[in-house]
C-alpha cells in the first residue's frame, strides 16, 4: 500500500520572484527520484501538499502544466509558517511534495468548447496551468476559442509577466490583461475584472468560463456572465479551505458533505448551489 502521507523528495531548482512586493514567488521543484515523477501524474487544476519537514505542510495549486516534464511549479504567497519557510529557501534545498491531490479542471468537458478564463490577482496559478496545457502543441486543436481576462491591483502585482508577454503575441489566444490602477509606465488596460469581462463580452454559445480570484471579484463578475447568458453549469471555479491530510480523512475542509480536498477543489456554480454555504 502506497502511504499517501509520505512526501516525495524534491529539490528546489529555480525560484522566480513574481511581484514588486516580493511576497509571491514561483518555486520550480524537481523530483530527486525519477520514478517519483512518473507516480506524480497530474492534471491542471489539481493541488499538492508542499511539505517542509520541521515546519509542516501547505496545500498549493499546481502552477505548471503536465506538458512541462521534469519539474512541477508552485506559486506561493508568503503568509504562514510553511510558506514563510519556503520563501527563505534557496535553489538546491531539498523538501517534500505530496500529491497530486483533488479533482482537476474538467479537461474533457472543456474539449471542443470555447474557453473563457478569468483570473484575479495571484489566484491565477492553476489557470496558468490550464492555459499552458491547452495551448501546448496539438492540444490547441482540441479546444475552441480561448479568451483570457486577467487582472491585478497594479502592474507590479501581475504574475507570470514573461508568459503574458509571450501569450499576447499568439493569435490563437485572446488575452486581456488589466490592472485596477496603472502607473506611469503602464500602457495596458485599466479597469476592474468584471468591467473588462463585460467589455470583452464572450459569447455563451458552446462556451465554458473558468474563474478564480478573490471572493469580491467573483461576486461582481458572476452577474456579468449570467447576463451574457452563461449558466451555472458552465461556470467553474476552484475553492480553498484549510486542509491538512488532503485525502478526505482529517475532517476540516468539508463544505456540506463534500470535501474540498478530494471532491474538489474544482466545482461548477451549479454544484456549489447544492452545497451549504459553509466556506
Amino acid at each position, binding site marked *: 500500500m502506497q502511504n499517501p*502521507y509520505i512526501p516525495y523528495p524534491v529539490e528546489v531548482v529555480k525560484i522566480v520572484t513574481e511581484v514588486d512586493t516580493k511576497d509571491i514567488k514561483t518555486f520550480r521543484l524537481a523530483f530527486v527520484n525519477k520514478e517519483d515523477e512518473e507516480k506524480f501524474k497530474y492534471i491542471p487544476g489539481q493541488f499538492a501538499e508542499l511539505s517542509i*519537514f520541521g515546519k509542516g505542510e501547505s496545500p498549493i495549486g499546481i502552477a505548471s502544466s503536465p506538458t512541462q516534464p521534469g519539474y512541477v511549479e508552485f506559486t506561493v504567497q508568503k503568509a504562514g509558517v510553511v510558506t514563510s519557510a519556503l520563501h527563505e529557501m534557496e535553489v538546491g*534545498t*531539498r523538501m517534500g511534495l505530496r500529491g497530486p491531490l483533488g479533482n482537476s479542471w474538467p479537461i474533457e468537458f472543456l474539449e471542443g468548447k470555447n474557453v473563457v478564463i478569468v483570473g484575479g490577482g495571484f489566484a491565477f496559478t492553476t489557470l496558468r496551468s490550464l492555459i499552458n496545457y491547452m495551448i501546448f502543441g496539438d492540444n490547441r486543436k482540441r479546444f475552441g476559442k480561448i479568451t483570457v481576462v486577467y487582472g491585478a491591483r497594479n502592474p507590479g502585482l501581475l504574475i507570470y509577466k514573461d508568459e503574458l508577454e509571450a501569450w499576447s503575441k499568439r493569435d490563437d489566444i485572446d488575452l486581456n490583461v488589466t490592472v485596477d490602477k496603472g502607473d506611469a509606465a503602464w500602457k495596458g488596460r485599466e479597469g476592474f475584472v468584471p468591467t473588462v469581462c463585460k467589455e470583452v463580452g464572450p459569447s455563451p454559445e458552446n462556451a465554458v468560463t473558468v474563474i478564480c480570484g478573490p471572493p469580491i471579484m467573483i461576486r461582481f463578475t458572476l452577474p456579468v456572465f449570467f447576463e451574457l447568458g452563461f449558466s451555472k453549469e458552465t461556470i467553474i471555479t476552484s475553492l480553498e479551505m484549510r486542509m491538512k491530510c488532503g485525502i478526505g480523512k*482529517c*475532517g*476540516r475542509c468539508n*463544505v456540506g458533505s463534500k470535501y474540498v480536498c478530494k471532491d474538489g477543489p474544482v466545482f461548477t456554480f451549479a454544484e456549489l448551489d447544492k452545497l451549504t454555504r*459553509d466556506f
Partner: protein
Amino acid sequence: MEKRLIKKDALTGIIGKIAQEAVVFAPVKVEDNVLFKALEKGEEPFLTYANSKNAPKNHFFPRSEVMLRYTRTAKGVEFAGGQKEAEATVLFGVRPCDARSFVLLDLLFDQEKYKDPYYIDKRQKATIVALACVHPPYATCFCTSVDGHPLSADGADVLLTDLGEEFLAEFVTPKGEKLLKYFGDVKADAAAEAKKEAVAEQAAKEIKSHIPAREVKPIMDANFDSPFWNTIHQKCIACGTCTYLCPTCHCFDITDEMKRDDGRRLRNWDSCMYPMFTKETSGHNPRPTQRERWRQRAMHKFSYYPENFNAIACVGCGRCVMYCPVNLDIRKIVTDISKL
C-alpha cells in the same frame, strides 16, 4: 458460525491464555475510570464494567501518533522512516456500540481510493472480542436508534453474551475463529440460542432513550440556515470532550516537531468544536462561531456521513451526553430538529 458455551469463571483464564500469545487490550480500572489498556503480565481485566470512559478507537487511531521521522542532512531536512508495523492484538470486552464504531471508521479510513495505512495496519492485526450488553448500562444508551443493538455483533470477531450461568461465545469472522482453541469444546445448543434471543429482546427493551436519528437528515438539510442553530450552542464552552470521547469522531491535525537534527511529523486528534480547526492563514474562518461548529458536528454525524457512506456516524454510546460539562445533549438536538 462456530458457537461455544463457557463457564463464567473460565473467562479470566481464557483471557490470560490469549495474553500469553498476543497483546490483549481490555477494560481495566484506573483510579475512578475504566479504561482500555494493554494487560500487563498477570493483570486481570475488570469484567463487571458498564463501559470504558475512553472509546477503544484510540487503539487504531491513537490520540497522538508518529506518522514519519526526518533528519537534517547537508542537503536539507530529509525523510528518515515511516511508522513501524503494528503487532497482533486482541481487544477484549469491547461493547457492541464501540465495536460498531470500527465498522463506521473503516468506511472513512479504508476507502477504495484513499487508504489510511496507519489505521488499516493496526485494524487488520486486531481481533475484536465484544461483550454484549445484556443489561444496557446507562440511561444515556441509545444504540437502537442508530442502527445498533445491545447484542449486535457488528464489528466484532467474537461476541460474548452472558446467559446467566455461562457465556455464549459466537465466532463471527474467520479472524475470530482463530481464537476458538481457547474457548473449550462445549458447543452451544438450541437452548442456548433460544436463551440468547430472549436476552436480546429484553436488552433492547431496557433501552429507554430513543431519537429519530434515521429520519432527521432531510430535515437538517432543509434547516441549514434555521434560527434553530442560533441558540443551541450558547452554553458550549468548546472543550472538545464530546469529540474526544466519541467512538466515531476521526478529525485530526498534522503537526511537526523538531529537536536539534531529528524531527517527527505527528497526527493528533483535533476537534471541530475548536475555533482554530478551520481558521485559514488569511484570517478567514468558514465556521467563525460555535454556532457553525455545532451545526457541523451534528450534521456531520446525521447528514453528511449518511450521504457519503449510507451510515449514521453515531453509535449511541452516550459518552458525549454523559460527560459534557454543560449538559448539552445530542439526543435532544436531533429530536428538536426533527420537529422543525
